[in-house]
């Protein structure tokens, strides 16, 4: 199991992003900053970096591959990707339905 990460609204499925800085939270209906700490309602949005197909590239923080070769980037939202599969070993909070509320 990976270490429990810092959870941000940026990674939360309830965030409807207004812009690169902030979005509307569908739960609270408030505007929240994307980089704010997430609340207890946090649920992860599927992203490449949570996917079993994602492979980081050594030395690159924000580039990786989808499978062995196809370039991608870790924060690409993968809600609409048919190949997306939650990665094994994700911290509890980053599992679907795994918000802190349910801990």
């Amino acid at each position: 199991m990976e270490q429990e990460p810092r959870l941000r609204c940026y990674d939360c499925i309830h965030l409807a992003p207004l812009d690169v800085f902030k979005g509307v939270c569908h739960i609270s209906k408030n505007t929240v900053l994307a980089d704010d700490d997430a609340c207890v309602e946090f649920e992860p949005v599927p992203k490449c970096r949570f996917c079993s197909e994602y492979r980081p590239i050594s030395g690159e923080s924000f580039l990786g591959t989808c499978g062995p070769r196809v370039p991608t980037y870790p924060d690409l939202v993968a809600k609409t990707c048919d190949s997306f599969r939650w990665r094994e070993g994700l911290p509890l909070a980053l599992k679907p339905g795994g918000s802190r509320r349910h801990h």
Partner: protein
Amino acid sequence: MPGTEQLERRALKELDHEPSKGEVSPRAKYLREMYFDSKSSVSMEFPYWYTRRWNELDGELTIIRKAEALKTAFSHLTPTIFPKETLVGGRTIYLRGSFPMPWVLRSYYLKDQEEYKKAKFAGKVADEAVKVAEGGGNVTSAAGNVSSVSGKFGLRAEEVPIFEKTAGDWTGRSVEDVALIHERDVPRHEEKVAIMRNLVCMYDSGYTNPQGREVVSYYYPLQYGIDGIIKEAQKKIEEIAGIAGEDPIVGIERLYFYKAIKTTLEGIKKWLLNYAEEARRLASTEEDEVQKSEYKELRDRLEYISSGPPRTFQDALQLVWIFHLAIMAEDTFSGLAPGRLGQVLYPWWEVDMRHGRIDPRKTVELLECMRVKFTEIDFFGSKKVIEGIQAGSTFNHVCLGGLTRDGRAAANELERYIIEAGVSCQTPQPTLTVLYDELLPEDLLLKAIDSDKTGVGYPAWVNNRVAIEYLMKNYAEEGLTIEEARAVSIGGCLQTNASTWMPIKLDGKDYEIPCGAQFASDVGVHFLNLPKLLLLALFDGVDPRSGERIFPSHGQQLSSYDEVWNAFKLYFDRTVDVLIRCNNIQHDVWRKMNPPVVNSLMKADAFSSGKDLGRMGAKYNSSFSINITGGVNLVNSLASIKLNVYDRHSFSLEDLKKALLGNFGYRKAEEVNSYSLFDQVRESHEWDAIHRLCLHAPKFGNDDPYVDGIFKQFQEFFRGEAHGHRSMFNRPLTALQLSVTTHGPLGAVTIATPDGRLEGTTFADASVSAFPGTDISGPYALFSSATCFDHSDFQCTQLNMKIHPTAVRGREGSKKFLELVRAYMRRGGFHIQFNIVDSKMLRDAQAHPENYRTLMIRVAGFTHYWVELPKPIQDEIIARTEYEGVA
């Protein structure tokens, strides 16, 4: 019987009557507040998926490859739905999002400084001249996890590497890269490079803005629905696969075209279904019952229109919106106009009204929400294009009125609600224009006047008769009839578009809707810096600002006015000749490497002919043009030279040139941070006498035959130049004149001019507006000057007027205002638009932008938020003559 006192009170009330701004619906108000709170943001989702699929299909036919790339990108866009939205869909995951299209254009956002320098050396970079507005939704500098691109767009740190990688991926295979290789074969190419480097011309339209300034045809989605079009495309495929037909060159290609349409539509269908799924997900977690039920309704609607044709007004509006976004996703678009949307959507609205499914309140609320959606559109580009040309506007133009095919007034009830929504929910997009005809009902016209009087800057007024005459002059050879010319609408900020009528069958009734039918406009040579061309003539081919020789010596002694005029004409012709040849190559490369697919479906007759727009699939194709900026400064300068140097011998040409180089003794505009003639600082009195004579020479806009004669002479020359050059479609160019906001940056790179204008200050706006402060003889004198030539020989002759609100106060004021518009139209003026605003308030808004986030102002063919306008344009608007009376 009312008493005298009562009558007086009523009369006074009547006199003071001012149009109400109306109450925006709570829903639209909430959504608009979200917009105000949002910053321009870049998302890499679309370009990532597009590039990924493109790279997988190496070796495939280009149009199929592009369609597959579009399908993959549409299918993977993350659907974002905001609370209270009833009309959904965005260009990106963000509310105010956009994305780069490096397959078209990539050089300007390269991180690699060496490559940037190379681009600059090749004459492609004009960003230095462009000021970016610092307020509103612009991200002008980096903050936290966000970088700023082009001084306007925010990009998250997490996406910077993929942004750079994707741009790099297209090195050597973007439209821009390939076009710039092949255009080098044009003779005098080094002259072209010098022209662009010195901003004698603003930009290369072939790879910067290859499509746009055009009217959409929503016919196929509205009449057939997505599955219906896919079925039609399949029928066509079976009919023509392997058959050359009448055109052996493109006959077989029709197969690939229809396959591309089918593939792309599959992507759009999935896009809608992804939104439907998101609505379902939101409904499942929503606790508020009203919102939950709205999400469910959304889901049902989106699911339905992902296959079938619209049943209701709201279905139709949603489908129009998603296809509008889809067109803009395939190219570096600006100026995509919904056209006569109130007439296009009327059948669905009428049926809803008949069946009691909608009422006026609901209609206005939906139209308000539509306004917010159109305002959310952002367009990613370089500073030069986004701020230098467009000042951040996206030009989604909606027209009202005009005529039916058989010459009756075409205005309808829905258009009245469109005006109402524009007043109650004031947003820059879509901007509105009345296609003025004498047959239009007075109540509609007064409603439009009331909208103008609120200070919102729309509707503008276009002379329907002149527009039709223009179309007949330019498109009759392609088969345009007078009946079809009546379908005219405006694309971009002011471009007259040839359109057509398409049949709609709904609820057992037949309708006819006006639909776009021509290739993009405002493509070709754009924008020529006319005052600089005159200076080049005066300085024998050398740009006095940079000291660089651009043209060989013209060989004229300039011992007479005619020699000055001839030298100007010579350089104008050389410029157009080399630029149009380069531009034709750019556009040809564009059509080969980035053939338009979605837009071809959305334009009569491309789908029925099986030819994309690059292969002349549109019904009308005579839309390439030469566009000019600073025409009034050119003409005023010629008048000053003629009078002072040659008629009266007040000073010599050599003395004038020295005075121009010395900026008439003033400091430069940039140094004093003022771009109009206001607030300038004089350093020397050496040139005072010459400057005074230059300022006092006759000025356009005062019904003065001396200068108006020169204006007319220039217009005749300009028209002849345009018609003497040909586009890649081998059609004559048209003469187009509007500045948009190029009068800011092009003025910034031009030294003082013989009309008394100072170095770096903004040129006169539009094309028949007077230079700010020089029209001192009243509005009707301005009208006489502006109409001293036939506007129907030109695209976009544009007049901006600023009127103090007290001049049009009350009902009487409204009537006088309408008479003013009528007077201009009856004299043959093509277009007029108004700022009903107090200049003192604008000065305060400049000093305290934080108090004016919602203030909108008319610029040149569009309305925009004051705080998002660059300072040189703000200065020019403040300096415009403010009319205090209109009688």
